[in-house]
C-alpha cells in the first residue's frame, strides 16, 4: 500500500469514528478490508482509496470505518464496575420518584455483553427488592457505531465461547436458554433493552438524560481532543447524581474538568459539582 493511501484511509476512519490508526496497524487494513475489496472488485487498497475519493462514496467509507473498529467485549468486563452497580442503583432507586424510569446507557455496546451484564444485575436487584423495586421501570439503551454489532446485541444470542468469558455458569443457567449450541438471553433481560446504531461524535442530546452511562474501552482509540469532546458530550446527558463508567485503562483526569472521580472507584466518575452548566458541543 502506498503511504499516501494509508494516510487517506486513516483520515476517513478518524473523521468518521474518532479512532486513530497508527502506521504499525496497516496490516489490519489488509486483513479486515480484504472482503470489501473482493466484493467491490478492487485489486488493492490503493484502488479502494481512489474509489473513496469520489463524493458519492459515503456509504463505502462508512462500511470501511465500521470494519476497522475493534469490537472485543465480554460479560462483566473488569468485574468491579458491575459490582458498584449494586451500590449505586439502590441509591438512585431511593432518590428517584416512583414513576420515573432509571435510564442506563451502554454507549459503545459492541455485541451487547455490557448491556446484558447490567440487565442481569438489574434483574437480581429487582428479584431481591421490595414492591417498589418490582414496580420501578429500568431502561438500558445500547448504542454503537458499527451496525453488525448492534444487530447482534439486539439479537442477544451468544456463542459458547462468548458465554464463557466473564459470565459465571449460574448466571448463564438462570438468564439464557440454549438453542442449537448457542445461548439466547431470556425475554426478561431483553425487556429492559433497546439497541440503536449511533455515533458518539454526533449530537447526543436527542437521547435524553441518563442516570448511568457506560462508555468503556472506546476512548482508548481516540486522540485527546476527541476524548475531551466525547466525555463532555456524555457528561451533558448525565443526571447530576448519576455516574459515568470508563474502561479499566481509561481516565477522565486531565482531560475534562466536568467530571470528578467517585471516591475509591477506579474509572467511575460523577459530574463535577462546581462546573459551569454543561452543554454538549456539537
Amino acid at each position, binding site marked *: 500500500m502506498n503511504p499516501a493511501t494509508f494516510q487517506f484511509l486513516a483520515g476517513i476512519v478518524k473523521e468518521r469514528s474518532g479512532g486513530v490508526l497508527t502506521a504499525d496497524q496497516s496490516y489490519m487494513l489488509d486483513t479486515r478490508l480484504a472482503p470489501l475489496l473482493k466484493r467491490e472488485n478492487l485489486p488493492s487498497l490503493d484502488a479502494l482509496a481512489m474509489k473513496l475519493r469520489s463524493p458519492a462514496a459515503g456509504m463505502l467509507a462508512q462500511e470501511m470505518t465500521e470494519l476497522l473498529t475493534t469490537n472485543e467485549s465480554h460479560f462483566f468486563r473488569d*468485574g468491579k464496575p458491575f459490582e458498584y452497580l449494586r451500590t449505586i442503583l439502590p441509591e438512585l432507586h431511593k432518590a428517584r420518584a416512583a414513576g420515573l424510569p432509571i435510564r442506563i446507557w451502554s454507549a459503545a455496546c459492541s455485541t451487547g455483553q455490557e448491556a446484558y451484564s447490567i440487565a442481569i444485575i438489574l434483574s437480581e436487584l429487582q428479584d431481591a427488592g421490595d414492591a417498589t423495586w418490582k414496580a420501578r421501570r429500568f431502561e438500558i439503551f445500547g448504542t454503537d457505531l458499527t451496525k453488525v454489532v448492534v444487530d447482534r446485541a439486539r439479537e442477544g444470542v451468544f456463542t*459458547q465461547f462468548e458465554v*464463557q*468469558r466473564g459470565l459465571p*455458569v449460574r448466571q*448463564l*443457567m438462570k438468564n439464557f436458554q440454549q438453542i442449537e449450541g448457542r445461548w439466547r438471553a431470556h425475554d426478561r433481560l431483553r425487556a429492559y433493552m433497546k439497541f440503536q446504531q449511533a455515533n458518539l461524535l454526533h449530537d447526543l442530546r436527542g437521547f435524553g438524560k441518563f442516570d448511568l452511562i457506560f462508555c468503556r474501552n472506546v476512548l482508548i482509540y481516540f486522540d485527546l481532543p476527541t476524548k475531551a469532546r466525547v466525555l463532555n458530550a456524555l457528561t451533558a446527558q448525565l443526571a447530576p447524581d448519576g455516574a459515568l463508567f470508563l474502561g479499566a485503562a481509561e481516565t477522565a483526569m486531565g482531560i475534562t474538568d466536568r467530571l470528578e472521580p467517585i471516591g475509591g472507584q477506579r474509572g467511575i466518575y460523577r459530574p463535577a459539582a462546581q462546573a459551569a452548566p454543561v452543554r454538549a458541543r456539537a
Partner: protein
Amino acid sequence: MTISALVVDDSTVVRKVARRILEKHGFSIREAADGQQALNAVAEDMPRLVLLDRNMPVMDGIEFLKRLRETYGSSEPTVVMCTTEAAQDRILEGLEAGADEYVMKPFDEAILMDKLGMVGLGPEGGDAG
C-alpha cells in the same frame, strides 16, 4: 502461594494442556485419569481445586463429584467441571452434583483463568482480564 490442583481427565493431552496453563499461573498439579483415581488422590491429600472431566472410564465425573461431596461436604475442594458435555441439562446436572463452575470444552487459557477467577482462584483472586 501455590494452590494445589487435581486435574482429572482420561485424556493425557487434556491433562497436559491443563497442567501447562495452571503451572504457568503458579498452581501445583497432580493428575488422575478417572473418578476412582481422583477419589484416591483426594483421600491422600485434599487439593484446593479439582478440574474435572465428565466422561471417563471406571468412574465418571458426576459419580466422583457425588461421592466427593458426600464424604467431604460441599465447601472443599472447589470443583470446576471441564467437559465437552455442553447441553444445558448436563450443565445443570453437574451443578446439582456439586460443581462450582463449568468449563465447556474446547477451552483455552483465557477461559480457564477467567472461570478460576469466578471461584476466587484466579490471578489476584479475581478478574483474568
